[in-house]
């Protein structure tokens, strides 16, 4: 069920110091709610991304607690303030214990 879980992130390549930049994230994930029944009539076990975090140079941008009410292939868009060049780090926490990560660099002039 959880095969091919691939994160995608998009941030601008460059910005000016002090800019507020848009950050978009998407991850392929079934977000199985635990409320659906399979063809055998039994409940399909819950398996969702239950937490998503984004940091910039180690400082938190957002920390999201996620419930089954978020759609399949979870999408989050938000804004970060960048004062210097650096790295965005993204983490998606799966119910099964897996943590999927991605990073993105931005050059700040």
């Amino acid at each position, binding site marked *: 069920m959880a095969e091919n879980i691939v994160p995608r992130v998009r941030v601008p390549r460059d910005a000016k110091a002090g*800019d*507020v*930049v848009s950050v978009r994230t998407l991850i392929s994930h079934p977000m199985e*709610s*635990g*409320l659906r029944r399979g063809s*055998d009539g*039994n*409940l399909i*076990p*819950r398996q969702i991304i*239950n937490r998503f975090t984004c*940091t*910039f*140079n180690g*400082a*938190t*941008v*957002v*920390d*999201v*607690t*996620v*419930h*089954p*009410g*978020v*759609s*399949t292939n*979870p*999408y*989050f*868009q*938000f*804004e*970060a*303030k*960048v004062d210097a060049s650096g790295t965005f780090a993204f983490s998606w926490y799966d*119910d099964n214990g897996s943590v999927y990560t991605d990073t993105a660099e931005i050059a700040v002039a």
Partner: protein
Amino acid sequence: MTQTRRQFVGNGLAVAAAFFGLPHIASAATLEEAIAAFTSGSDAGADGITLIAPEIAENGNTVPIEVSAPGAAAIMLLAARNPSPDVCTFEFGPAAGSQMVSTRIRLAGEQEVIAIARMADGSFKQARQNVRVTIGGCGG
């Protein structure tokens, strides 16, 4: 598969435990409880928070939502009539550039989407919008 009554009851308990037992999925049972857990019972003002949701969603599986609450420390999104009303809660850190977020949520039928912001000073703001969910013509 044949199933004895005892197995059936056992499965039911296991399901109940799966719903209510594990702390990391401690979804609030009711909307009021979910709100109270976030606001500790404080009243919420209506100014300074903007919730953008479609009046009519073409499918309840993927409903785009945007919420903005300048100065918020955290924003909670709720769907009043989902099986579990919690959708997600955004906590903003020091590197946040604004308190504006977009996501896509599930809506089990027409209902109110609720956004509650916890402001830096500990006060709360709330916005609600009703979303109608289209009944598709074709199952496909």
